[in-house]
């Protein structure tokens, strides 16, 4: 906390009145503005393949947004009870929304740097970058949603560009098929979510979270309708976070999509789903006052256990590294769900477990993005995607393989990497809230995950090359992005205190 306090002394919180309150949304505006700027560049020169310019502009935009977010977080904007609400309370800027925006923007920075090489020689690069930035601004808005209507709109704002991004390699059948699959399930889930929202509206007469909570607390008649609505809303979020039972799209989409897009979706988009799920369930359907009949904690417990187990078991049987990572990312959604599943103890313990879940998503943003970007690099080199194709890769690219080893062991929760702390704190907080068995299931899954993560490591370092490994060029941007992610993953172990402390502080305000 000392670093934060020092920063706070240098800056002043954004107070009501000066400067105008809407500037609290600056991170979103910067993202969206950069997206528009890219469209402008693209319309001036529609056939531009100047990757350096496009990637540079997007990276700068995302980095600026990240910088502003970090500044707001450090200076206490919207925090300690002074959250800033805008647009008739439809949008709220508080510590939690800023924390999640920091996750999205750091992932976007890495993804855009990596895309510089990945997209070389592809058409429509301008559209690619602007879609990434629009999706990111949708995600940032999701983290700020304070009304079910905003939830729906921002969720669609992030989903629609994502569908296109998955199908970006339009001459590749896998990519197009993945995009179609993602789109169909996405449309179905959006319909379910919308219907759920309308049911909640029918039962409570409001879309603003706090009003919904108030109405639910006093409501007796329409509990059944509200309960069904809550369940359907949960379904909508299960899609966005790739949780069971709406996870079927994930392996297909992540496998078919260009690898940087897979990185983007499995890290940032997932975190966005959790951001909005956390806020909706804690603020709009608070456990303390919700009618007895709507026990969503039980639902999330089942969902967490099934999601992590199914994801990990499926990952363990894959032969394709990218698919394995896709399933493992479902498994990690299960871990993050512990944040909601272990609620019910009440008091500060709730903020702690939710905060631990958020901190895990933060670290996950680095290690999972890094892992997918490494795959992007391997794709760039033209090496296959199965474990066997990775055999002996370390002899050709030791530094990149070292980074991938860091990601794999960090995802498995081994020290000395960031994933160790974030995962163990999650288990610890689950135990603290009395959910031993959740922690135990998580631990068993963790062991299983070590098995398949270490398969990648084994292939790279221990196996002998099965064919000739000709790597060709060294992609600068991809290397830089992978290294950025690796350094972040390692530094998040000693640097974990500010992350977990910020996460738990901002999570606690939700329960205040």
């Amino acid at each position, binding site marked *: 906390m000392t670093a934060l306090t020092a920063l706070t002394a240098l800056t002043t919180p954004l107070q009501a009145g000066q400067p105008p309150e809407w500037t609290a949304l600056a991170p979103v505006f910067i993202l969206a503005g950069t997206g528009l700027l890219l469209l402008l560049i693209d319309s001036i020169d529609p056939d531009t393949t100047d990757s350096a310019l496009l990637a540079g502009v997007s990276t700068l935009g995302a980095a600026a947004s990240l910088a502003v977010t970090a500044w707001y977080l450090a200076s206490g904007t919207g925090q300690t009870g002074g959250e800033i609400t805008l647009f008739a309370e439809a949008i709220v800027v508080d510590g939690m929304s800023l924390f999640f925006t920091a996750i999205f923007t750091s992932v976007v920075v890495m993804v855009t740097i990596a895309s510089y090489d990945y997209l070389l020689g592809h058409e429509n690069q301008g559209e690619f970058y602007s879609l990434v930035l629009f999706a990111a601004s949708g995600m940032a808005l999701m983290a700020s949603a304070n009304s079910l209507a905003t939830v729906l709109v921002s969720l669609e704002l992030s989903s629609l560009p994502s569908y296109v991004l998955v199908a970006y390699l339009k001459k590749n059948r896998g990519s197009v098929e993945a995009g179609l699959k993602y789109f169909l399930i996405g449309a179905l889930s959006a319909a379910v979510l919308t219907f759920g929202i309308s049911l909640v509206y029918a039962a409570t007469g409001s879309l603003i979270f706090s009003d919904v909570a108030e109405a639910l607390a006093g409501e007796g008649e329409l509990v059944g309708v509200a309960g069904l609505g809550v369940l359907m809303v949960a379904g909508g979020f299960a899609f966005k976070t790739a949780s069971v039972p709406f996870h079927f799209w994930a392996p297909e989409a992540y496998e078919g999509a260009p690898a940087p897009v897979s990185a983007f979706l499995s890290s940032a988009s997932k975190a966005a789903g959790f951001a909005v799920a956390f806020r909706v369930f804690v603020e709009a359907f608070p456990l303390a006052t919700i009618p007895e009949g709507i026990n969503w904690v039980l639902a999330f417990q089942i969902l967490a256990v099934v999601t992590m187990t199914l994801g990990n078991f499926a990952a363990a049987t894959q032969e394709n590294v990218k698919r394995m990572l896709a399933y493992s990312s479902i498994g990690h959604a299960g871990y993050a769900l512990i944040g909601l599943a272990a609620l019910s103890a009440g008091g500060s313990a709730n903020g702690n477990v939710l905060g631990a879940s958020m901190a895990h998503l933060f670290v996950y943003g680095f290690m999972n993005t890094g892992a997918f970007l490494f795959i992007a690099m391997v794709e760039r080199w033209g090496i296959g995607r199965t474990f066997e194709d990775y055999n002996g890769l370390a002899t050709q690219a030791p530094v990149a393989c070292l980074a991938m080893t860091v990601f794999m062991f960090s995802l498995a929760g081994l020290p000395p990497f960031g994933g160790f702390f974030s995962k163990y704190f999650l288990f*610890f907080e689950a135990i603290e809230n009395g959910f031993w068995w959740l922690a135990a299931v998580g*631990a068993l899954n963790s062991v299983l995950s070590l098995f398949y993560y*270490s398969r990648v490591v084994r292939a790279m370092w221990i*196996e002998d090359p099965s064919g000739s490994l000709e790597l060709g060029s060294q992609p600068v941007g991809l290397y830089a992005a992978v290294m950025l992610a690796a350094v972040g993953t390692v530094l998040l172990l000693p640097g974990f205190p500010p992350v977990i402390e910020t996460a738990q502080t901002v999570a606690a305000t939700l329960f205040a």
Partner: protein
Amino acid sequence: MIIEALIAFTFAAALVTFVLPDRLAGRGAFALSLVPVLGSLYMWSQFDASGNALLQGGQTAFETVIPWLQVAGYEISWYVGVDGISLPLVVLTTVLTSLAIVSAWTPIQHRQSQFFGLMLFMEANLLGVFTALDFFLWFIFWEAVLVPMYFLIGVWGGPRRKYAAIKFFVYTNAASLIMFIGFMALVLGLGDSTSSFALPDVAQALRAGDLGSFYGLDANTLRVVAFAAMFFGFAVKVPVVPVHTWLPDAHVEAPTPVSVMLAGVLLKMGTYALLRFNFTMLPEVAVEYAPVIAAIAVISVIYGAMLALAQQDLKRIVAYSSVSSMGYVILGLVAYTAYGVGGATFQMVAHGLISGLMFMSVGVIYNTTHTRMVGDMSGMADRMPVTTGILIAGAFGYMGLPLMAGFAAEFFIFTGAFQSTVIAGNGLAIFTAAAMFGIVIVAGYLLFAMQRTLFGPFRLDTDYEVGPAPLHDTLPLAVLLICIIALGVAPEIFFSMITDAVDPVIGGVLQ
């Protein structure tokens, strides 16, 4: 700050070794590894601690506490220090690593800089395990040991190295996670009486009886469940029967220097943690379930020895005999007498040295003959007299011949176990008598194997030139033998500081 300096230097040395060219890596790593040896010997010479680092009134040597992060109201700090239990293990780690590095010069012929770098990386983490006094810090080092071990077995091991490496990795990681949950439940059950993961705080609060109920489990059940979870977690590492099956696989596939580290130091992590956690923090549960634990110990001793008796591979024989020897350690721990627990700690060091010696000499023979099968060779004494002599001396140490470290350790353990009153009516004596029978089997299989491989007319089904081993292969063996005899002749050089630290552990247990 000397502990930090040691750990930091060893990490830095690992990095330096990684980037050294392969032909320099072995020599360079050895030179670098001498610094931790000197550092730990300096610590030993300056050592001034009384009592147990975890218990009230204990004074820790070279202690550092720096707050690190706060989670859910609990403080996590960089907290290191040594007492009479950990210092001998620190010295053992540094000395054995240096010797193992020298013994790797001959057998390791590819990717040397990575191999030696990983050895040093492992050493740094092992030093952390034996000095960390905060649970999370300790757990980081504890888990981080797995990573270099995985590569060391997986890359440089024998034909089934991939299977052995992953089995080792998954087994021990699963055990650690179960232990983690057990310990966390214990800390949370303590409620407000501790606000940190510092092991001394937790140990003292538990000893003071501050354990409350925790989510439906009353204090007594919680104590037993947590004890069981932690015991299981450490038992896999030790290993005891029936969770020992990863060990022979790992040993047989691992290259010799890695086997030395595995048997010499890594197994001690398990017994060290058992002593620090289970037997120091929850003595009443240990006493209550003493018959069960003693039975596990005896089964490990006898069954491990029987398995060793059935092996044809010299290395497997030594590997299974580790299961036996670690069984004695657990027997000594459960006795809860000064000689029992002290002897167990002493046995950790003694077995580290003796098993190191055995693995290294088997390795030296293998380097020359390219076989480890008892049936394939005979009369090695004619061709490799020095190595043979040392191997026999090591075997005698294993059998517990007087004036060897193994004798002193086993004598302490048996004395302590016979004095013990943890089981009413001197019941532990029966277990001890059964365990002592293990010595007979040990003597049996070792003498049998020695006799068939070393003596008689020379025969070897290869066309290799078989002659004396090079000097740099023999020197580490000689150093180890000197250490073993020194500890056997004058056990006091470690034993007095061990008993200083052990006395508080057994204090007040059996009133």
